[in-house]
């Protein structure tokens, strides 16, 4: 783990040694932490194996190596589970101190699967697939929770599903950038900033809980379960951005509309939550009388699926069902029983859906620099990209991201500003044609960063022995 090889260029190529192990196919996602690329292994042993490479942006100036990257690495080094994404390597680009995490590539994720059903095939996801996806998600989560790790950012786009191959249809929980070990935290967890995408955020977080628990992940699983059933986010609140305050009235309102108001009777510790006390008029502003979760998700109130869902969406985190308990729920014991390949039902008669593969932007190189020349056709592995590489592949569009936040569509030039300096000129990953004259903004970024790192002019060592 962590190739120790130097970054020096050799005589054959200008690419750093680690990068020469891969053929870069293109960019498959971007988020606040950086970019994700699809690459294929060149070496004989695993030739053609797809790898997702997550490139972290440099953290704040003077803050050294990205804490998000370091946190994700340190957790993933310790956890090995079939339903958790596998970190296969860590590569270092010394020049700008950026890290590249190499993961086993997953072709699908729940966001895309749900979207495909909603926008393309127009029918719901079959029962077997919903149940298997949920079971494996809970199985991975149970492993994490029993290792004292809270994920804190579960949402459909972070739940990956493997494509064709030995692990076809296996669920992988991804993106541990916000995950925390919750044993004896040195600081209250809430000091790390508000987490969890708002739609999947548990009510105790919205009401300002300081010490929260693995139950926040179970709330998110409940929301995802409902979304798998209805193809629509269950609580689609409008987020008030830019507030350090966890209180999001619209989100709470969306929850109350479906589940009714929480009461001190059913949730005694509610009284201790800061925003329950402070914002009581707001919270109680609307009265929702005819609330009904079963109507929203179209389940009979007596069905085991509804029983499980309502236990995941229990207001009181202490009463909310745990991952371990959920795995034992009756729902999973009834036909159709969950299976390993979530996408291919064992029973005949169930509809088999051919999910599209992840769109790949072949015009962006490892530095995130957009290439304005026409892209070269992707030759290797074209078979695994149904739909070929027609016009849709050459146009960057909001893309599915491996464990990253979805970003609105950005014009290509914008990548330059966000891109990272440093792998040196002349590097051309994957043999993809690159634009030679780099836009001005990009260069300035490069120069400035070098200065901040204080490397070039930094005197070798100080002799001071004041400590």
């Amino acid at each position, binding site marked *: 783990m962590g190739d120790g090889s130097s970054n020096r260029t050799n005589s054959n190529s200008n690419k750093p040694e680690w990068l020469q192990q891969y053929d870069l196919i293109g960019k498959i996602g971007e988020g606040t932490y950086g970019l994700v690329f699809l690459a294929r292994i060149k070496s004989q042993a695993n030739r053609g194996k797809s790898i997702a490479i997550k490139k972290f942006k440099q953290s704040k100036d003077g803050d050294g190596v990205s804490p998000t990257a*370091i946190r994700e690495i340190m957790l993933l080094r*310790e956890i090995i589970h079939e339903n958790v994404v596998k970190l296969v390597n860590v590569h270092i680009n010394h020049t700008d101190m950026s890290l590249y995490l190499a993961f086993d590539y997953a072709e699908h994720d729940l966001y895309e699967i749900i979207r495909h059903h909603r926008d393309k095939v127009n029918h719901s996801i079959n029962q077997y697939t919903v149940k298997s996806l949920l079971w494996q998600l809970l199985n991975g989560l149970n492993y994490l929770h029993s*290792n004292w790790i809270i994920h804190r950012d579960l949402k459909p786009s972070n739940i990956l599903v493997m494509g064709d191959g030995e692990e076809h249809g296996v669920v992988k929980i991804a993106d541990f950038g916000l995950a925390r070990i919750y044993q004896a935290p*040195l600081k209250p967890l809430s000091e790390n900033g508000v987490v969890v995408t708002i739609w999947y955020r548990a009510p105790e977080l919205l009401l300002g809980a300081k010490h929260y628990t693995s139950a926040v992940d179970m709330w998110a699983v409940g929301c995802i379960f409902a979304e798998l059933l209805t193809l629509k986010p269950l609580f689609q609140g409008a987020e008030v951005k830019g507030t350090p305050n966890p209180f999001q009235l619209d989100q709470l309102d969306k929850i109350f509309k479906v589940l009714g108001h929480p009461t001190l009777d059913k949730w005694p510790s509610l009284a201790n939550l800061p925003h329950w006390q402070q914002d009581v008029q707001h919270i109680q502003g609307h009265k929702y009388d005819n609330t009904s979760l079963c109507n929203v998700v179209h389940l009979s109130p007596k069905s085991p699926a509804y029983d499980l869902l309502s236990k995941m969406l229990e207001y009181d985190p202490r009463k909310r069902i745990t991952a371990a308990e959920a795995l034992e729920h009756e729902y999973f014991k009834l036909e159709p029983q969950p299976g390993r390949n979530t996408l291919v039902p064992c029973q005949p008669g169930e509809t088999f859906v051919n999910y599209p593969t992840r769109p790949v932007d072949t015009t962006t190189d490892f530095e995130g620099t957009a290439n304005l020349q026409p892209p070269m056709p992707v030759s290797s592995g074209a078979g695994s990209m149904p739909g070929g590489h027609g016009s849709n592949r050459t146009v960057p569009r909001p893309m599915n991201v491996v464990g990253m936040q979805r970003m609105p569509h950005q014009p290509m030039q914008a990548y330059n500003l966000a891109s990272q300096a440093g792998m040196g000129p002349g590097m051309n990953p994957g043999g993809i044609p690159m634009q*030679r004259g780099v836009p001005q903004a990009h260069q300035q970024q490069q120069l400035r960063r070098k200065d901040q790192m204080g490397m070039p002019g*930094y005197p070798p060592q100080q002799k001071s022995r004041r400590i």
Partner: protein
Amino acid sequence: MADFLTSTHRAKWVFTPQHLVEKYRAANQRARQVLEKCGATLMEIDVDGSLSYPEPQTSVKANAEKHSRTKPLSIDEEQCIRVFFENKIQEVCKSFQFPHKIQATALIYFKRFFLQWSVMEHQPKNIMLTCIYAACKIEENHVSAEELGKGIQQDHHMILNNEMIIYQSLEFDLIVYAPYRSVEGFINDMQEFCNADDDFLQMLKTLQDTARSEVDKMMLTDAPLLFPPGQLALAALHNSNALHKVLDFDGYLSSIFSRQNPVHRESEFIESLNAINSLVRKYKFPERKEQNHINRKLESCWGLSSQDESKKREKKSKHKSKKNSNEAQIAPS
């Protein structure tokens, strides 16, 4: 926290005494060879981030001259230097009032780092500060490099320059288990084992406090690289109980070993206990005179002794020209 049984700590960072000796020997040997070849041993982090040893001396005369006055550190001398800086880690962390956990993590990082490298190759003062910085980051008590540097009047760029090489040398195994938490766990367990009343709880508190300072002592030896944290904690409690006589320790031991799987036997623990105590007994903080002597030797290995001031200046200017050429390269072609 993630389970120790499946941890990288257990799988990769608990060594046999022989293995430890081999690792120290290998690092020392490599530094000696570099000294012979290059006349100095200190590695530099280059502009492109890669590590390199000093340029080999070209002039035969200079080489011969150098040879006659620069002697490598012995393995024992390297140990002295490490011991000195491990004490510094405890000092610095105390002065910043960092939680115990951070101090322990920084110490373990420092120990693991100098299993891979000799103190002749990387300046332990810089590594020590970077280990503290990294430990703060990992233990979620983030302190900016600048803040840390200011507090100890050191240039924080040095910390940032070394950060990546530390993670890399630790092979990105960054979750470490210190015995302090295990001590706490055993104390809780003892409460149940003994059906504690208020007086007894007070005694357990005393037992715990002494055990913690016992762990402090162990943390300065090789013990954390040789034993799992649970054994260190139990040894610390054993020693503490020998002083305070709070409970029937043998009885308690039998109770925990009977509850555990047969992998751990009491006799094995007694063996570990003796080995740990012997490490603590043998621990010696170097005397000032000895320390000064080794320091002078070390500085000359680094090529940073006072006679080399002119060379240092030369290096600086070389650095500058390198920077310029680098800038030129970045310009669009």
